[in-house]
């Protein structure tokens, strides 16, 4: 049997002031699966996916990502091994403003994977044309539109050939007319078989691309359903209330 890419068991995380951000989370992400995470603001979605690549620690429970087990007091070496194999795309893009687009993408392949520059740049150009922005390679982040910056961020996370991509509200900071170019790029990735965990409120994207939808509230997973069930016939009262609010 094939092991899941992520497997979390009874994860608990409390922030300093006693606020429970993750309350007994157990879940798996399977290979080639697209998992969409939804839930009201402050429900713990970001915290959850950030534990998957070690940006957040947790207080108790078990977590295995790409075959590596990390505990509550993870070793740096293991966390870095996971980060080399898991990409992350942020709401605010977080491109490196002092590096060109090409340098943003080749940084990790050259510094972390010790690839040679030519090879890394060739791969980066390939990724940029896959994202439809190969003309911007020599520019700097500030010269690009939000949608283009986010596509660069996706290319940057793909540059190390990750086994899993994490997206934290990748279209929330975009102008409405720029949302689709980013979602389209993500659709293509999904078609190519990339394993993805996507925190988003884009209902049409979730309906079309997600294999499963996870609904969170107050640090708990309330419901995990196929998009068909979730959007038409959600099992839980809280899910239906949330959907009423976002769909209007």
């Amino acid at each position, binding site marked *: 049997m094939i092991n899941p890419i992520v497997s979390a068991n009874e994860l608990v995380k409390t922030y300093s002031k006693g606020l429970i951000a993750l309350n007994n989370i157990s879940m798996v992400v399977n290979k080639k699966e697209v998992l969409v995470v939804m839930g009201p603001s402050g429900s713990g979605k970001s915290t959850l996916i950030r534990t998957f*690549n*070690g*940006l957040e620690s947790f207080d108790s429970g078990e977590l295995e990502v790409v075959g590596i087990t990390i505990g509550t007091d993870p070793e*740096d070496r293991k966390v*870095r091994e996971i*980060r*080399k194999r*898991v*990409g*992350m795309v*942020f709401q*605010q893009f*977080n*491109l*490196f*403003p*002092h590096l*060109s687009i090409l340098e943003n993408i080749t*940084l*990790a392949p050259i*510094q*972390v994977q010790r690839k040679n520059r030519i090879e890394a740049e060739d791969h980066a150009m390939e990724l940029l044309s896959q994202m439809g922005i190969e003309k911007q390679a020599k520019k*700097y982040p*500030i010269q690009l539109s939000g949608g283009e910056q986010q596509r660069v961020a996706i290319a*940057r*996370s793909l*540059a*190390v050939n990750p086994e899993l991509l994490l997206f934290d509200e990748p279209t929330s900071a975009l102008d409405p007319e720029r949302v689709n170019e980013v979602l389209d790029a993500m659709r293509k990735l999904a078609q190519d078989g990339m394993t993805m965990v996507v925190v988003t409120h884009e209902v049409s994207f979730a309906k079309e691309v997600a294999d499963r939808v996870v609904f969170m509230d107050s640090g708990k997973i309330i419901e995990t359903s196929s998009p068909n069930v979730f959007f038409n016939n959600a099992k839980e009262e809280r899910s239906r209330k949330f959907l009423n609010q976002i769909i209007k």
Partner: protein
Amino acid sequence: MKGLRSLYIQVGIGLVLFILFAVLINNLSINLIRTNLNFSFKWLYRPASFALAEHPLPYSPSDSYAWALFIGWLNSLKVIFISLIISTLIGFITGIARTGRNPLLKIIAASYITLIRQTPLLLQLMFWYFVGFLSIKGTLIFPNERILVLSNQGIKIFGDINLTAEYSSLVIGLTVFTGAYIAEVVRGGINSVPRGQWEAFRSVGLNENSGVLKIIIPQALPAILPGLTSQYLNLAKNSTLAIAVGYADIYAISDTIINQTGRAIEGFILLLLSFLFLNLIISLMMDFFNEIITKYQKV
């Protein structure tokens, strides 16, 4: 009512300043007449007739005052330049450690910064000179004679570079002091970089050290440079405390010359001009760096 009172105060302050200034000018002219000295710089060509322990260029007491002053200048530059480089290194390393994740390094950095910033520089210089060097009995060898030897004569590096105890304690004192201030400037700069940049470099797999060096510091530099410039200017000015440990810098030599010749006015004018010049150079240099960085960031 209020306007009237502030008017009185202003007039009062003006009057006091005027009287002070008048007394000063009066004293000056009386002194000049009494000592029979006219304002002139001709005395600069007379022999200095004092010896100097340290001189990067040939010097003997029969050389002119002008040459002695120039030697003093070089001695000052020798201290300022080296201290500038080493304190920058200390400052960056400490500032980075202070914002880093290693708790032990963090505590060490914080204690160093606090200790140094809470005690006067003069005291620290005296400490390095009298406790650090003059109290050494015999020689201290690290790890053998060809690498580093400490004695009450100063420091001997690689067997053939000799630094006097005066020079060494001055450089150590100034670098340790300035380093602590630069560390705070660096910390402020690092904290001005958005948290997302740390998350981004971590999530692409960079380790903490390369992330800080390649991603955080370049973005912190624009915020660091102005503070760094003022620390460099302070360093140059503080170097005049050399006189406390008997190092012959420009100030110490000017002081001797003024005592010998009575040319206080001319001496201080030269001294002021030389520091003005030095600090202008430092400011221009930093402006130049600033321009490079901002240009590079805008592209």
